[in-house]
């Protein structure tokens, strides 16, 4: 077991590094997640590992700890409804509004191993007749380089590949390689993946029409959440949309976004000049 003092240090460390808010009930998790890392790093115990972090000598180790403690849990078309909304309404709306520029930029900002971005790619593939001559950019980023490497590779176990994925898509867009399934080249080349910590500046990425930042905010403490939403707002086109996870909301954390009344799980820019965080009665529903 990790000592109380070491666990406290780890909590503070994760909060600073990634905004991850590790509840006190996660002490057992720390052990099971960091054990393999200890072995990899040739350290005898969790105590030694925390000791290294305290000494602050090894940047690589610090990143590895953040990644080991982050949850990468994901699936294709997670929660289904938001993706139906994208296909039926959000994307057609954007297509109509971007008819002049014929440019569309979409960002999966906590992409994990890529299933979310590829789900969007599948939807765009089905809309391809309407996107002829368009410049469509689909970007997937995550703090975990290992997750991003897997996303780029687009290879999934039989268990992973069918989580959320209808069998017709499996047959249409995947080929079997050994016991795994690999996503087709036309989808792999439709998405650009790269590592990115959302707590650091991402202004250089420019402006997006649709941002998916799903099932990350639930792990963040309120101030980090507020700050992240404010920065996402500045990366979203004025008439764009932000898609959060099913149990997440901006309410109580920022005035920069308001819920899209027509699409559950989507948020649009609030009225101009309300960028100040507000604390409403809804606060805590996402925590």
């Amino acid at each position, binding site marked *: 077991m990790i000592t109380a003092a070491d666990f406290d240090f780890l909590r503070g460390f994760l909060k600073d590094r990634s905004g991850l808010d590790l509840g006190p009930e996660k002490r057992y998790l720390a052990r099971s997640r960091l054990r393999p890392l200890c072995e990899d790093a040739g350290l005898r115990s969790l105590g030694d590992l925390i000791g290294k972090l305290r000494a602050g000598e090894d940047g690589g180790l610090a990143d590895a700890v953040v990644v080991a403690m982050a949850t990468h849990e994901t699936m294709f078309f997670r929660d289904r409804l938001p993706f139906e909304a994208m296909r039926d309404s959000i994307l057609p709306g954007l297509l109509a509004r971007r008819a002049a520029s014929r440019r569309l930029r979409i960002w999966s900002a906590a992409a994990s191993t890529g299933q979310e971005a590829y789900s969007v790619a599948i939807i765009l593939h089905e809309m391809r007749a309407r996107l002829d001559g368009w410049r469509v950019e689909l970007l997937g980023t995550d703090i975990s380089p290992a997750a991003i490497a897997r996303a780029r590779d687009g290879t999934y176990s*039989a268990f992973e590949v069918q989580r959320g994925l*209808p069998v017709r898509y499996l*047959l249409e867009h995947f080929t079997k390689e050994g016991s795994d399934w690999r996503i087709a080249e036309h989808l792999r080349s439709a998405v650009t993946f790269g590592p990115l910590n959302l707590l650091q500046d991402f202004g250089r990425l420019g402006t997006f029409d649709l941002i998916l930042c799903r099932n990350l905010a639930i792990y963040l403490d309120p101030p980090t959440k507020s700050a992240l939403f404010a920065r996402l707002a500045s990366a979203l086109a004025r008439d764009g949309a932000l898609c959060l996870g099913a149990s997440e909301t901006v309410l109580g954390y920022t005035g920069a976004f308001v819920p899209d009344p027509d699409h559950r799980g989507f948020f649009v820019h609030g009225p101009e000049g309300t960028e100040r965080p507000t604390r409403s009665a809804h606060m805590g529903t996402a925590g």
Partner: protein
Amino acid sequence: MKHALVVDDSAVIRKVACRIMEGLALRTSEAEDGEQALMACRREMPDVILLDWNMPVMDGHEFLRALRKMPGGKSPKVVFCTTENDVACIARAMHAGADEYVMKPFDRETMTAKLQEVGMI
């Protein structure tokens, strides 16, 4: 309440599948092989059938063929559920008239998505 029939010769798989489906507000019943499953369908046609491929007595394919010939046998949605996961196996199952396909092992999320796909939840 929608009724799901789980057809598998493994009691463990039946139990796991039933628990997941009951958690999704489906009513469940079980059959150990294709023949039992046909009898169950004669008594009461289910809304969805989770169907194993390899079973003694009557396998999934034979069952599916017989089911579709029964009165009312075209209505249930059929989700094949097997350890086979070659493209050819999946294509063959879909060709035989299945509506979805689940590879073992599966979890709640997978089953939920498959049942949504066939309009059960």
